[in-house]
C-alpha cells in the first residue's frame, strides 16, 4: 500500500536535495565534490528564439541550397590555422578524468565529422593523438605530462587560464582514479587525491602571458594556432587582454560548463552563464575590429542541441565546444545501466559522480574492467551521429533565417523570451524593440 503524499509540501528553500546535502555535510565534514555542470536553472539559449524568414526576408531551401558549416581557427598568427568542417569541437577533458577508451572514442567520433578534440589536464595519450586527425593540446597550470615533443605534435595549443565550472579553481583528481598509468603521466604517487594548481607556475597577468605565448610559438616555430581558454567571469576584459597577449582564438566557458571533479559550491556559484559570456566576448572582439576576421571565438558551457549551436553563433561565436553532451553521446547516463546506477545510489539522468571512478558506462573511470565496457568504435560512431545531428539542426535554423553559412547568423535573427535573457544577450524581448539596459 502506498502512502497518500498529496498533503506533503516540499519547501522551495529546503528542498529534498538541499536537506540531503545538509545531512551529508553534517556526517562527512567535507564539501561535496562531483562531476557534471551546474544543475540549477540559469538564463540560457532556451530563452531565445529565432526569427525565421517572413515577408521581408526569404529563407533558403532545406536539403537543396547550401548552408556552409566550416570554420578556420587561428588565422591571426599561425602558419597553419586549424580548419574544421563543423563548428562544434570536443572540449578538453583529461585522460585521468576519462578512460583511454573514452579518449579514443572522442577522437574517432570527432575525426569522422572533421572536427577537433582537445587533450586535458594530464597530457596527451597515444590513443587520442592516434585517433584524432585534429588535436588541440592544453597547456595547463599543472603542466602534467607537458613536453615539447607532444607540443609539436599538436594541431593547436590551448593555454588554459580557467574553465566555466570553476573559474579561479584548480583541477582535482581523486585517488581512486589515479592508476599506474595516470600517476606516471603526471609524475605523482598513486592513490593520492591530486590537486592541480589554479595558477600557472611561471606567469601571472596579461604581460607575462604575452611573453609565454611568444615562447610557445618559438618552440613550435610559429606553426600552430594558440588559443586562450577562460572561465566566464569578467569576459569582456579577459577577451581584450587575451587578444592583447597575442591569442589567435579565445575560448570562453560559461558557468554551466561540465567538469570531471569540482566542489559543488564552486560549480553552482562561480562564474556567469554562457549566454551573457558569448555576447561580452563578441563585443570585445568587435571593439578590436577582430570579430569574424582576425581572432576566433569558441564558446562552451551547456551546449546540447543544434539550436544552442546556432544561437551561440548568432550571438557571435565562431564555433562551440562540448564536454558533457559528448560524454552522454558516448553512453553516459544510459537507461540500460539503471540497475548499476541504483547500486551507486543514483539513476540514469541523474548520474554526476564523474569524480568517483566507478562509472558503469566505462567513461569517467580508470578501472580497467569498467573501461573495457566502452567500445571506442561503437561509442565513436554514436558521437559522430550526434555531431551530425547538431550540425543538421543548426543548418536547418540558419536556412530558415535565410543564411547560406552558419556564420551569417547574427543577433538580429534572435529575440528573447525573458527580460533576463534579453538583458544578458542584448537582443529585444520578443514582440518588442526593448533591450533592457539599452537606451
Amino acid at each position, binding site marked *: 500500500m502506498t502512502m497518500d503524499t498529496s498533503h506533503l509540501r516540499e519547501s522551495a528553500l529546503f528542498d529534498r536535495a538541499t536537506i540531503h546535502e545538509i545531512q551529508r555535510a553534517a556526517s*562527512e*565534514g*567535507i564539501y561535496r565534490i562531483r562531476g557534471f555542470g551546474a544543475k540549477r536553472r540559469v538564463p540560457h539559449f532556451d530563452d531565445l528564439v529565432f526569427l525565421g524568414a517572413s515577408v521581408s526576408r526569404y529563407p533558403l531551401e532545406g536539403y537543396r541550397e547550401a548552408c556552409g558549416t566550416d570554420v578556420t581557427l587561428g588565422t591571426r598568427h599561425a602558419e597553419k590555422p586549424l580548419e574544421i568542417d563543423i563548428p562544434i569541437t570536443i572540449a578538453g577533458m583529461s585522460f585521468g578524468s576519462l578512460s583511454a577508451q573514452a579518449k579514443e572514442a572522442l577522437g574517432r567520433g570527432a575525426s569522422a565529422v572533421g572536427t577537433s578534440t582537445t587533450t586535458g589536464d594530464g597530457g596527451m595519450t597515444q590513443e587520442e593523438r592516434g585517433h584524432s586527425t585534429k588535436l588541440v593540446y592544453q597547456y595547463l597550470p*599543472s*603542466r602534467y605530462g*607537458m*613536453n*615539447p615533443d607532444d*607540443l609539436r605534435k599538436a594541431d593547436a595549443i590551448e593555454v588554459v587560464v580557467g574553465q566555466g565550472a570553476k573559474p579561479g579553481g584548480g583541477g582535482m583528481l*581523486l*585517488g581512486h582514479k589515479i592508476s599506474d598509468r595516470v600517476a606516471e603521466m*603526471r*609524475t*605523482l*604517487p598513486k*592513490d*593520492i*587525491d591530486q*590537486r592541480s*594548481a589554479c595558477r600557472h*607556475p*611561471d*606567469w601571472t597577468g596579461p604581460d*607575462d602571458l604575452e*611573453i*609565454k605565448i*611568444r*615562447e610557445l610559438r*618559438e*618552440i*613550435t*616555430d*610559429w606553426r600552430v594556432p594558440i588559443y586562450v581558454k577562460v572561465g566566464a567571469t569578467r569576459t569582456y576584459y579577459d577577451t581584450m587582454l587575451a587578444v592583447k597577449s597575442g591569442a589567435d582564438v579565445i575560448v570562453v566557458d560559461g558557468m554551466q560548463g561540465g567538469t570531471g571533479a569540482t566542489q559543488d559550491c564552486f560549480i553552482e556559484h562561480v562564474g556567469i552563464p554562457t549566454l551573457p559570456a558569448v555576447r561580452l566576448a563578441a563585443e570585445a572582439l568587435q571593439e578590436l575590429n577582430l570579430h569574424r576576421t582576425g581572432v576566433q571565438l569558441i564558446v562552451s558551457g551547456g551546449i546540447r542541441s543544434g539550436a544552442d549551436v546556432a544561437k551561440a553563433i548568432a550571438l557571435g561565436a565562431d564555433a562551440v565546444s562540448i564536454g558533457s553532451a559528448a560524454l552522454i553521446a558516448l553512453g553516459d547516463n544510459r537507461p540500460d545501466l539503471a540497475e548499476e546506477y541504483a547500486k551507486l545510489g543514483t539513476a540514469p539522468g541523474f548520474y554526476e559522480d564523474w569524480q568517483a571512478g566507478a562509472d558503469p558506462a566505462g567513461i569517467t573511470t580508470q578501472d580497467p574492467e569498467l573501461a573495457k565496457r566502452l567500445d571506442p568504435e561503437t561509442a565513436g560512431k554514436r558521437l559522430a551521429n550526434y555531431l551530425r545531428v547538431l550540425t543538421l539542426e543548426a543548418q536547418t535554423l540558419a536556412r530558415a533565417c535565410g543564411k547560406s553559412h552558419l556564420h551569417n547568423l547574427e543577433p538580429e535573427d534572435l529575440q528573447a523570451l525573458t527580460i533576463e535573457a534579453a538583458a544578458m544577450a542584448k537582443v529585444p524581448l520578443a514582440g518588442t524593440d526593448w533591450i533592457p539596459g539599452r537606451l
Partner: protein
Amino acid sequence: MSSDVIDLAGAADVRAANRRLQGRQGAVAGGRFEVLNPGGAHALAAGLMDDVEVVIRGPVGYYCAGMNKNATVRIEGAAGVGLAENIMSGEVRVTGNASQSAGASGHGGLVVIEGDAASRCGISMKGVDIVVGGSVGHNSAFMAQAGRLVICGDAEDGLGDSIYEAQIFLRGAAKGLGADCVEKEMRPEHEVQLAELLARAGIDLPASAFRRYGSARSLYNFKVDNIGAY
C-alpha cells in the same frame, strides 16, 4: 673547437637565433654556439632539441632555455622569469641571479644558478635537479613533484609548500616551511647522491653541511582533520 656566433645586435633576431639553435636550418647536433648581445631577450634558446652547446654572453629575459632537451646552455649574466621552465634534459647554467620560477615544472636535466634565485624556484618541478649557489625566495619547491632542489644559502618563507615527492637540500636556514614540508633524516645514501650532484654542479661544499626536507605526506588525501592546512 670554434663556435658559431649569433649576434642579436646584428642581423639575427630571437626567432632567427632560435631557428638556428633548434636545428631548423640544418643539423646542429654536437655544434657550439655563442650568442652575443642578448639584451634581456625573451624565450632565447628555448625549445632546443639536440646536444648543442650554447654560451649566451649577457643577461636574458623570460623563459630562457624553456623546454629544452639535450642541450647545454650557459648564461653569463642574469636570467629573467621561468629560466629553463619545463626542461626535459641537458643542462642550463646561469652565472648570475635568476628571477622567479626558475626550473618551473622541469622534468629532467640539471639547472645551476650560481647566484640567488627569486621566489617559486622549482615550483611544480617534475624530476629536474636544481642547484642554487645562493639563496632562494619564498614558496620555492611549491607543489614540487619530483627531483631535487639544492640550496646552498637560505630559503625564504613557505619552502616546499604542498610538496610531493621532490627532495630539498638546504645548507642555510629556512625562514619557514610550507604546508606538509618537514625536515627528514639525512641518511648516508642521501649524502652520496647529494655529493654527486654538487660535483656535477661544480659546487665545492660538503654534502654533510646540508639538511634534507620533503613531504610529510599528510595532505595526500583529503581528510577533515587537515582542514586547517588546506
